[in-house]
C-alpha cells in the first residue's frame, strides 16, 4: 500500500509542474496586465512601462517563469502585487479558511446525506421517504448563492440569530463558538447540493442491496433488522458511495467560490477570483498550485479509503 501511495505522489509532480506552466501561459495570454490593473484610469503606456519595470515584469516570459520556479523550489513563492504581502502567507491563510468551510460542509453533507438516504431506502414510498425525496430535489435544484442570500436574509436580517458574513466577530469573539456561529450558514448552504446527491445515491444503492439474497439470508437467520441494515446493507452501500463523496469533495471546493463571496468567507476561492481580476500572476500560481495539490491528495485519500472498505480490491 505504501509503495502505491508513493507512486501516486510521484506521478503528481509532473502534473503540478505542467500546471504551473499552463497557468503562466494563460495569465500571459489574457489581455491586460498587473500594471494596468493597478493604475486603472492612469494607465498611460509610459506609466505602465515604468511600473512593469519596478514589478520585474519587463523581462521575457521564459525568464520570469524561470525566476519564479527557482524561487519556488527554495520555498519563496514571491510577493503578491495586489496585496503587497508574501504569496505563501496569503495562500496558506486563505486555504486554511477554505478547508474549514469545505471540510464542515463535506462532513455535514456526508452525515445528512447518508442518514437521509438510508432512511428513505428503508421506508421506501413511506411519507418520510417522500418528504426526503422532495427536499432533496429542491436542494439539488436551488442555486446555492441564492439560497445563501435567502438564509442571510432570514437568519441574520429578520431573526438576528446568526451573523451575516465573515469568519469571526469583529469585536470580541475569535473562539470556537464564534467560529461555529459564522460557519453555520455558509456550511449549510455549501452542503445542500452535495447532501442531495449523496442522499439520492445512498438510497439507490441501499435499495439495490436490500433486495440481494444475502440480506434475505441474514433476515432468515433471525438477525435483528437494525443489525441487518447497519452491518450488512449499509457497509456494502458505503463502498459505492465513498468515491462519490470523494467527487463531491471536489465540487464542494469548487462551489466554495460562490459561497465565499456571498458570505465574505476569507477563503482561497474568492482570493483566486480577485487575483485573476487584478492579474496578480504570482498569487494565481500559488493559489492554483495548492488547490491542485489538495485535489490530488483528496483523490488519493478516497482511493485508499475505498481499498480499505472493499474486500474485493484487497491485494
Amino acid at each position, binding site marked *: 500500500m505504501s509503495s502505491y501511495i508513493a507512486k501516486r505522489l510521484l506521478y503528481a509532480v509532473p502534473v503540478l509542474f505542467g500546471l504551473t506552466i499552463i497557468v503562466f501561459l494563460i495569465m500571459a495570454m489574457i489581455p491586460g496586465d498587473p500594471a494596468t490593473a493597478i493604475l486603472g484610469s*492612469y494607465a498611460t503606456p509610459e506609466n505602465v512601462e515604468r511600473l512593469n519595470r519596478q514589478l520585474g515584469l519587463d523581462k521575457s516570459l521564459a525568464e520570469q517563469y524561470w525566476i519564479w520556479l527557482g524561487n519556488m523550489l527554495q520555498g519563496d513563492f514571491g510577493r503578491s502585487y495586489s496585496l503587497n504581502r508574501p504569496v505563501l502567507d496569503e495562500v496558506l491563510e486563505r486555504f486554511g479558511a477554505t478547508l474549514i468551510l469545505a471540510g464542515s460542509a463535506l462532513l455535514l453533507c456526508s452525515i445528512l446525506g447518508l442518514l437521509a438516504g438510508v432512511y428513505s431506502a428503508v421506508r421506501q414510498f413511506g411519507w418520510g421517504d417522500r418528504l426526503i425525496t422532495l427536499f432533496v430535489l429542491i436542494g439539488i435544484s436551488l442555486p446555492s448563492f441564492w439560497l445563501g442570500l435567502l438564509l442571510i436574509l432570514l437568519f441574520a436580517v429578520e431573526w438576528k440569530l446568526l451573523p451575516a458574513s465573515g469568519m469571526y466577530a469583529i469585536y470580541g469573539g475569535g473562539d470556537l463558538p464564534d467560529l461555529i456561529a459564522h460557519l453555520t450558514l455558509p456550511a449549510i448552504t455549501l452542503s445542500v447540493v452535495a447532501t442531495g446527491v449523496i442522499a439520492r445515491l445512498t438510497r439507490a444503492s441501499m435499495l439495490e442491496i436490500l433486495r440481494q439474497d444475502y440480506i434475505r439470508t441474514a433476515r432468515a437467520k433471525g438477525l435483528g433488522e437494525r443489525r441487518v441494515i447497519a452491518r450488512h446493507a449499509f457497509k456494502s452501500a458505503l463502498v459505492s458511495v465513498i468515491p462519490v463523496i470523494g467527487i463531491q469533495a471536489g465540487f464542494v471546493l469548487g462551489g466554495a467560490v460562490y459561497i465565499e463571496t456571498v458570505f465574505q468567507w476569507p477563503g482561497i476561492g474568492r482570493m483566486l477570483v480577485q487575483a485573476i481580476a487584478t492579474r496578480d500572476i504570482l498569487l494565481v500560481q500559488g493559489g492554483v498550485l495548492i488547490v491542485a495539490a489538495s485535489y490530488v491528495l483528496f483523490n488519493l485519500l478516497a482511493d485508499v479509503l475505498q481499498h480499505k472498505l472493499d474486500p474485493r480490491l484487497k491485494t
Partner: protein
Amino acid sequence: MRRLSRMLTAAWLGMLAVLGMTSVGAVAQTPPNVLIVGQIAEPKSLDPHAVTAVNDFRILMNVYDGLVRYKDGTLQVEPALAESWTISEDGKTYTFKLRDGVKFHDGSALTAEAVKFNFDRMLDENHPYHETGPFPLSFFFSTIENVTAKDALTVEFQLSAPYAPFLSNLAYPTGLIVSPEMVKQHGKDFGRNPSGTGAFKFAEWESNAKVVVVRNDDYWDGAPKLEAVVYRPITDANTRVAEMLSGGIDMMVEVPPDNVATFADDATFLMHEQAGPHVWFLILNAKEGPLADKRVRQAVNYAIDKTALVNNVLQGTAEVAAGPTPPAFSWAYNDSLQPYPYDPEKAKSLIKEAGHDGAELTFYVTEGGSGMLDPIPMGAAIQADLAKVGLNVKIETYEWNTFLGKVNPGLEGKADMAEMAWMTNDPDTLPYLALRTDAWPDKGGFNSGYYSNPKVDELLEAARSSTDQAERAKLYKQMQEIVREDAPWAFIANWKQNAATSSRVEGFALQPSFFLILRDVTKN
C-alpha cells in the same frame, strides 16, 4: 431502525443547540463609540504612496495628514501639516512652514527632513528606500525637481515648470506624509505597519477580516470623538446591505441603486449623498468614421436621453453631466453650461445633414470597473436611444482590464465609441490628460478619441502654469464651452457618492473629494 431515527433526531437537536449557543453573540450590537465601516474590498496596503484605490484612501485619510488638505465640504485646499506657504513669482518654488510639535504615531517628530524623505523615497530611484515601492501614482509629483529642508520646520519644493495642480495634488492621498522611522524599520512591510500623524492610529490588520484604527489622543487638530474605527472588507454588495440591515456594520459606502430606498425609508438608517469630481462619458472617435464629423458627435449627444439614464438605470444616484468638468469643482465649473437636451428630431436631422443615416458604429462597453456605475445596462440604453435616430450600434463587451487594454491605446481601427469614467482631484487632470492634442495615445495620454483643438490646448497649458485661481477658473470655463460645442465625448452623468449610516452615527458628512473623513463622527 429506531437507532437511525434517534441519530437523525440527535443531529437535528445538535444543530439547534449550535444555533442557540451562538445566537446570543450574534444579536449583540456593535459597541458604542466604535464605528464599523463596510468597505468594498480588502485594502492593498496602508502605505499611501503605494496605493491607487479610493477604497484604500478611505482608511488612509484618517491615519495620515498631508501638508495641506481639502477644506470640509469643498475641493479647496487649506493648511494641514503646513501652517502656511508661499509661492514664488515664477510659480516654480513652493515654501512650506510646518506646524511645530507634531509627532508621528511612533513618537518621532515631523520635521522638514521627514517631508523631504517622503518625496525622495517616491521620486528618486537611487533613494535607499525607493525599493519599498512601487509608487504607481508618483507621477502626480513628477514636476518636483528638488526638495530641500531649509531648517527644521521649513521645506522648499523646486518645480521644473509652473504646475497649478501642485497644491491640490499634495492634498491627495499620494501626498500624505508617512513616518520615515517606520519606513526604515519595516521596509517593504511598512504598508502593514503604517504610521502617520493622523487623527487615528493604526492598531491591527487581520487579513480579509478587518483593519482597526484607534483614537490619537495627541492629534494636533483635536482628538477625534470615536474611540476606534473598524474597517471591514465586504466585496459583495448584497452581503454589505445585509450586514447593514442586521447591524453588523454602522456605515456602508457605495449603496447599490436598488437598495437606496430600503435605507432611505427606514428611520433606523440615514442616507447620505454627495456629488463628487466624477464624470461618466462616451469617448467618440473623432479621427475616422461617422463620428469624425462634429455634427454626428453632437447628434449622439442630443439622441441620448440622459435624464432617463440617470433616473431609471442609475435610480437617481447621479446627475446629468453638462460638459467635461464635474460641478464639484465649483470654482472652475462653468454654471452657464447646459446639458445637451434630449432631442431625437434634431439628432436625426444632424445625422441626415452629415449624410450618415443608418451608419454602423462599434461601441466598447465594460462589465464593471472603477467609477463605471452600471456600464452594461447603460450601454444597452444608449444603444437603444441611438437606434431611434438611425444609428446602428454594435456593442462589444469586455472585462475591465481587457477593456482598458483596448481603449487606452486609442480607438482607431477598432471602435467608434467607448464608455469611460474618471474621478480626479483637480479640474486640470482629466482635460489635460484626455482632451489635448499632445495627449493622443501615441504621445502617452488618454485622448483615445483623437480630439484636437488648438484653442483648447492653449487654454489648458495656460491654466496649468498659472498660480492664480481666478485666472485658472476663467480659462477652464472657456475650455468647457468649446469642448461642449465640439462634443469629443457624449457627456452623460456625474455620480453622486452615497453612504448609509445607522441612526446611532452622528456628525458624518460625505466629502466632494470622495474621501471618508471620520474626525468629527460620534456613535451613541
